[in-house]
């Protein structure tokens, strides 16, 4: 295959930096290191020295040497913010040269919620493409934390190119009801790590039909609207029936709701990758099956890539934003320039380099970024996909705000944002299904192949599944 690189010398060095911010972000980085994330630099940023010391990541930035003196931010975003302000130089240095920044952060606490917007804005200074992966706290962590998280998320959405967020509550679907809390948190980390690797793979993979960042943001367009949420699924399989299996696994993601979530999606991004042995037939099978889950109006953004590292396996990545009840016409708004404005309260005067003249900055940014995904990166992309994990994948209700909303200053985004978030949370909650406790009563079908339709084991008596009282 002949590839024409616009800028061949830089094709290989799309420098991705994965930043883990705060305690949760650090955990994700650890997870990522375990799973393997080559060709990316990992940077841990935290106020808590102990947590930093415990991290396996090589590059570490301590925030708030004087503000918190090595302690955590104590769950207070204000403290996190001040600490980050203090450490701006160090953060800037850590981010230097990055072309893509993946910012993983757990919102709700002090450091994550407070410092996220600063890190994002500094990354933007580097003209880096920013994809934020945020987790929102469990409901049991309290309303205060939730409100903090939502506020921080709204702020983050203004700086990052794409925000994919994962509601920890929805991880419940992926975790057995009796699993330990540690496991529940681990699943959240794992999901995040998987999605980071999948998206990194997507953007850097050498594609036959390439999916770039533009497709990514199209797929996620509208995710910022109220009631909207993001759907993410990833599956890998090998063997004779790998196309079918991989798709089935991707759809198995609890967020996918067996593919039902896709029905309402307007844009669905699908990337199919496989070893050199992948046949057109298989791709066809897969796409045909997928087509059953989406409506005729849905725009399918299709990508295909051959990746020798996958060997005999085939992987599918599905990403989409499902709108809420009101499919308000969503137009692509221009990205705000490097960020025109920030909530005034939060922008300290000490952040001068951030906003030069908006208009030119916009141009620079646009030009710089568009082509980025087109760079064809390192030859051995995504070796880190492992079939084992494919089972779990997906999860996560990412909820990206692809393009930042208002280009013009918006003084107090917090309040409406909270309301928006609340509405969204409500919509999400309404969709949540009750966990099925498997009654071990399949009677004569005990040993036969189960009949599973829409996630229900039909061999279990209907009256049991529907809780009809029988004496």
């Amino acid at each position, binding site marked *: 295959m002949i590839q024409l690189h616009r800028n061949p010398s830089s094709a290989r060095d799309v420098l991705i930096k994965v930043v883990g911010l705060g305690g949760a972000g650090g955990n994700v980085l650890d997870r990522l290191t375990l799973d393997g994330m080559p060709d990316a630099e990992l940077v841990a940023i935290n106020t808590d020295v102990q947590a930093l010391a415990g991290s396996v990541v090589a590059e570490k930035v301590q925030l708030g040497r004087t503000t918190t003196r090595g302690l955590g931010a104590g769950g207070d975003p204000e403290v996190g913010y001040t600490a980050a302000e203090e450490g701006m130089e160090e953060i800037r240095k850590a981010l230097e040269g990055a072309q893509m920044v993946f910012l993983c952060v757990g919102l709700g606490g002090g450091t994550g919620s407070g410092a996220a917007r600063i890190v994002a804005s500094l990354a933007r200074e580097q003209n880096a493409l920013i994809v934020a992966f945020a987790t929102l706290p469990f409901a049991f962590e309290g309303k205060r934390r939730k409100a903090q998280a939502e506020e921080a998320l709204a702020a983050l959405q203004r700086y990052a190119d794409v925000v994919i967020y994962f509601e920890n509550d929805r991880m419940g679907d992926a975790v057995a009801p009796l699993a330990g809390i540690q496991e529940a948190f681990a699943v959240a980390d794992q999901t995040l790590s998987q999605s980071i690797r999948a998206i990194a793979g997507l953007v850097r993979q050498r594609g036959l039909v390439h999916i770039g960042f533009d497709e990514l943001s199209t797929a996620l367009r509208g995710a910022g609207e109220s009631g909207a949420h993001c759907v993410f699924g990833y599956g890998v399989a090998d063997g*004779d*029936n790998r*196309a*079918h299996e991989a798709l089935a696994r991707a759809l198995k993601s609890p967020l996918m709701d067996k593919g039902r979530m896709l029905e309402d999606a307007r844009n669905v991004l699908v990337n199919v990758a496989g070893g050199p042995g992948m046949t057109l*037939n*298989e791709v*066809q*099978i897969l796409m*045909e099956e997928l087509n*059953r889950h989406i409506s005729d109006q849905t725009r399918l953004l299709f990508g295909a890539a051959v990746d020798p590292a996958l060997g005999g396996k085939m992987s599918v990545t599905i990403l989409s934003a499902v709108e809420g009840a009101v499919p308000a016409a969503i137009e692509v708004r221009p990205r705000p320039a490097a960020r025109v404005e920030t909530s005034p309260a939060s922008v300290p005067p000490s952040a001068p380099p951030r906003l030069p003249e908006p208009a030119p900055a916009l141009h620079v940014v646009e030009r710089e970024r568009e082509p980025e995904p087109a760079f064809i990166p390192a030859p051995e992309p995504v070796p880190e996909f492992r079939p084992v994990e494919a089972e779990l994948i997906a999860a996560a209700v990412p909820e990206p705000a692809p393009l930042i909303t208002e280009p013009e200053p918006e003084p107090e985004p917090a309040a409406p944002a909270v309301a928006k978030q609340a509405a969204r949370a409500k919509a999400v909650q309404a969709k949540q299904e009750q966990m099925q406790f498997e009654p071990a*009563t*399949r*009677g*004569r*079908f005990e040993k*036969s*192949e189960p*009949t599973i*339709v829409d996630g229900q084991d*039909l*061999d279990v*008596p*209907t*009256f*049991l599944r*529907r809780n*009809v009282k*029988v*004496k």
Partner: protein
Amino acid sequence: MGRDQIVVGLEIGTSKVCAVVGETRGDGTIRILGVGQAPSRGVRKGEIVDFETAGKCIREALVDAEEKSDVMIGSVYLGVTGSHIAGFNNRGAVNIPEDRDEIFDEDFEDVQASAREVSIPAPNAFVHSLLQHYYVDGQDGVLNPIGMCGRKLEADFHIIHGVASRIKNSQRCVKEVGLVVLDVVFNPLAAAQVVLDQNQKSLGALVVDMGGGTMDYIVYVDGAVKQSGALAIGGDHITNDISLGLRIPMAKAERLKVEEGSVILGNSRPGEAIVLKDETGFAGKTIEREMLNTIIHCRVRESFELLKKRLDEENYLQFLGAGMMLTGGCSLLKGINHLAEEVFGLPVHVSHAQTVSGLTSAFENPQFTTAIGLIKYAEAMQPAQPIGLLQGIIRKLPFFGLW
């Protein structure tokens, strides 16, 4: 075109194996000579799970059929089902070679082959490709394109496929009994041949064969098959539910279902009970009738709802002028047609094999619909057997009769 010929249809069902011996007449009618059956073991959800036991049951059923019809059985048409079997629609197209402008019969073969050039899951094999419509140079509604002028022949097919190894297993099981399998037929396709007449096929109809292990369905619109498949839920599930819900043995549950069961709720007097007498090994039990009906109702309604959901994927339900035909053992459940009407919003008829003569007791029983249908299917396919130049042309004609 046909001669009198003896044909045997064999259905290896979940609850019973049955072999129907029929005689196809030259005029297209069928006479049932005998029906042999044996309770089935080693079959779950329409698929063989215990090879040896299933083989024994087949032998039993065949011996029974031979005795009753006084015919030596050497070959059968075999019905298959299972949730792995699925259908979809696809269009094939061929360009007529430059050197002629007339469509020949070999073009038909080509267009059929081209329609099959579609991806199905790797372990699957084609079971049927059923012709729906021809298009010649884009012209719609061509009934028989052979001899017509045109540059391009297209045809829509309904393609039914299933996991090759599972289908082969059924075939092998029959072969080991010493029989020749003439053809393998997807059950609802066979059932539809005797449940529907040509007129109903053109009007549009849904045939649901609810058997012991599976619920098979097929949709005809404009005389052609548009949708087909199988759900692995059947009478066995109802029996199992009753057995688990009322805590009685399977055999008792089965009898209770057949003799007392109904899917209609609120029809029994409050507290009305059914008394199961005590026997050796069974303590006896009093069962509230409403309870029994609730269990059955829940299961049947759910099955119908699942089926409706599947059918809704393709949106043919509103075009079914002839309504829905319900057949198979479960169609004997009391009130099932009312429940089906409620769920599907279609007129529902509980139906059995039509347009056959002979043993009334056989064809009036919806349990035998599929096996009898196999004979009708065979009759329609028969002209494929004569050899010679005419073969190709004759072979095409029955396609219209059938599909």
